[in-house]
């Protein structure tokens, strides 16, 4: 039999620890009522500006914290036929989205601006065609293609090419450089 003091102490510890797992609920939290759209979103078309370079104010994408929002972005990516030009991230008619080369910047705000404003040589503008929070969801998914989102948020099981390792992947084996020319490696 535990003495009373120890028992009280244990109960106290349990009470303090009980709400801790609640923190993990945030990842799957579904927000069906998006916040009212910002009437004057700050969209920069280019980072070129006269005078000294002002530090960019980074805009945080609200969708990047929620696994549900990113998977919605993935659904919309095919629904709205982004895959028509960018394919499953590998690119084709449009540039690839799963590599680290970003013509117009890789910050969430840059991706948002690309979708809303369009870009020269083919990217159409989706202003007023896609609702604001859906654009953020698509932007989050697009960034997840090149592995820029935390692993617990980005979709884990894709049917197509995946730039980051899938959930079930084992440790990758890289070829070891032996320092010898290729021809000398043969026995």
């Amino acid at each position, binding site marked *: 039999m535990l003495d009373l003091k120890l028992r009280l102490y244990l109960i106290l510890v349990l009470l303090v620890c009980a709400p801790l797992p609640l923190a993990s609920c945030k990842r799957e939290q*579904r927000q*069906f*009522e*998006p916040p009212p*759209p910002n009437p004057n979103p700050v969209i920069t078309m280019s980072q070129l500006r006269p005078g000294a370079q002002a530090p960019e104010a980074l805009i945080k994408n609200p969708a990047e914290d929620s696994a549900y929002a990113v998977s919605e972005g993935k659904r919309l990516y095919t*629904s*709205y036929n982004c895959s028509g030009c960018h394919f499953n991230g590998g690119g084709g008619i449009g540039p690839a989205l799963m590599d680290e080369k970003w013509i117009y910047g890789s910050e969430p705000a840059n991706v948002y601006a690309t979708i809303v404003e369009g870009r020269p040589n083919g990217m159409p503008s989706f202003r*007023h*065609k*896609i*609702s604001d*929070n*859906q654009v953020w969801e698509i932007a989050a998914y697009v960034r997840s293609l090149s592995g820029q989102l935390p692993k617990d948020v980005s979709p884990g099981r894709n049917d197509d090419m995946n730039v980051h390792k899938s959930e079930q992947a084992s440790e990758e084996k890289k070829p070891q450089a032996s320092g010898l020319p290729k021809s000398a490696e043969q026995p």
Partner: protein
Amino acid sequence: MDRDRTTRALQLRGFLVLATIMLNGCGGLQSAINPAGPQANHISKLWWLMFYVSAAVFVLVMIFLFLAIAAGRRHAALADNAPELMPSSESERKKHNLVVSATVLTTVILFIFLLESFLVGRGLTAELAHKQGVVIEVTGHQWWWEVRYLNVDAGSIFTTANEIHIPVGVPVTFSLKASDVVHSFWVPNLTGKKDLIPGKLSTIWLQADRAGLYRGQCAEYCGYQHAHMALWVFAEPPEQFNSWLQTQIQSAVQPANDLQKHGQQVFLSSACVMCHAINGTPAGSNIGPNLTHLGSRNTIAAATMENTRDHLRQWVTDSQQIKPGNRMPPNNLSPDDLRALLDYLQSLK
């Protein structure tokens, strides 16, 4: 005394109300024991067989239970509570026979059920191969039904949503598909359930012998708004069905006045066009329900609401209030644009 009578009257009234509600279930628009076609007939016969046999078994069990209690009490009153250590072989034999016959009876009843449900199952699907009347393709989406009337003549294939019209007395074949998760097509007054499985084509046929309105429901849990995924089947006399078919094949009506024209422009230049199609206009996306003849439908949002102007307005501006989690985003339109859009949508008869 008087209070007693009032409570008893209240109890009686409560019972009557409850009974009426339950009886409503029997004659309802969505009820397996109010069959309106051959398949549902098979199923309801099986249901009634099981009901009567189970009721009889229940009554028998209760009778034997009370007999046993009564016998036990009589025994306790006679003897001086001493347990019967050496029962006579006569009473032992009687009890043994009773248990054996009850076991045999139970087994026979279960085999009758087995045979009958096997025959009903065969009856539901056996004639499928010969039955080709109207062919309708139903695709389950989260959370609505896409309905396509297939026809040998490609020009008369059309798409609608959530409301299925069928001719009375004609076998109708349903090709069932799913676009995202497993759904299940169930119109209890007409036939049993059939699952819609992504990547697989399932087929079911049914026939309505009585004209009428029958409610169907998704019968496989499919996500957040599973409960709001219903459909209506309109069984109509063939002439009425054919005239409906002829109007549905047509492209959408052209806007009749300036307000409707403006409404069409709003539709084509806003987010609507990304998901919905209106035949005869550049809008041709098939992610959401086809709106070519929206005005001719009785309900919207998978039979969630009646198709009225006010409901349509609520749905277009903020459908997440009505059916949280559904795929339609809120639309922030100016009052003028919204009025024109609603005018246009309602004109699509």
